[in-house]
């Protein structure tokens, strides 16, 4: 029996085929799905903020909350579970801008900054991004299947697509 593993906000989980892993209602957050296509070991991280370093002196860092620390931790647990580090590939989704304002608020555009931060850390880790569905102004629910690498994206009133 395969299982659907749920990842919350600022959370990450390991997932081995035939199980699948999901996170519901991604807004400005980004869902990073990584797998090894041979061992079919993978995982999903739901990150909220681009960069942990600006919070480094505020004590304990919640690792899955940030693009940099979250992506690295996800890779670490996938490799620890038996995946080959050099074969890892990624797909990403999310990073929407839910509200349109133009304000002085520095957090406006955080979706886009999250996406850029995720791309940057994956490039540093030398993990290719095979597909992405990011930006725009709507929320996404995602399901990732390490068996096939399918990353299924559902949005309200926009149907279902697989990347």
């Amino acid at each position: 029996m395969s299982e659907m593993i749920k990842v919350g906000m600022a959370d990450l989980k390991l997932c081995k085929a035939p199980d699948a892993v999901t996170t519901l209602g991604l807004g400005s957050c980004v869902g990073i799905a990584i797998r090894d296509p041979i061992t079919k070991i993978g995982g999903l991280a739901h990150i909220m903020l681009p960069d942990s370093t600006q919070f480094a002196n505020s004590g304990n860092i919640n690792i899955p909350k940030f693009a940099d620390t979250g992506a690295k931790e996800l890779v670490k647990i996938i490799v620890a579970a038996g995946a080959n580090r050099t074969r890892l590939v990624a797909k990403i989704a999310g990073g929407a801008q839910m509200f349109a304002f133009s304000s002085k608020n520095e957090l406006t555009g955080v979706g886009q900054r999250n996406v850029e931060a995720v791309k940057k850390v994956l490039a540093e880790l030398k993990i290719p991004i095979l597909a992405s569905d990011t930006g725009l102004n709507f929320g996404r629910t995602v399901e990732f299947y390490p068996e096939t690498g399918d990353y299924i994206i559902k949005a309200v009133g926009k149907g279902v697509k697989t990347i």
Partner: protein
Amino acid sequence: MAKVDLNNMEGVYFDVLREIGNIGAGNATTALAQMLGTKVDMHVPKVDLLDFSQVGEAMGGEEQVMAGIYLVVEGDISGSIMFLLEKSSAKALVARLMGSDNDNPEGDFDEMELSALKEIGNIITGSYLSSLSTLTNLNIFPSPPDISIDMCGAILSVPAIEFGTLGDKMLLIATEFTDDIKLEGYFILVPDLESYDKILTSLGM
């Protein structure tokens, strides 16, 4: 040293924030009653400091479609405020305000309805903020409202990210309004940490 650490909120500070939540929601109810021209009852709001992962569930699941009205707050304190309403409640409320039949409760909002909903959110959050302002003697200026109709998890990611720069929890005020339709509304107030201190200091804490 900041007085407030959202991850280790001391009882008395939490009580103060809860009380602010109560008063604010009370004023918002009055505003709603005036708008609709009827009597509206409010249940005692539930104020919780929740982990991010729990917030979606507290509002009926991350995929629940909701209307979120969001305003940036400036002045003596800075931050933002959001008012969330389940989609069907929002539909019913708009129909009532516009005096139209709610003949398509599952349908999308048209421009006119969106605009009315924005205004409802504006009035409700505005009365909430004005009670906070009166209570604390601080100047609080909200921006024009913006609206999103989407999965609650996605809408919530916006205040969650703002809280995320402060800590790993967020303050959620759940209010149930009743007249002949039952409305469940949620307030999320996101002042920055300095503003929490200002609020508490102005209250003599």
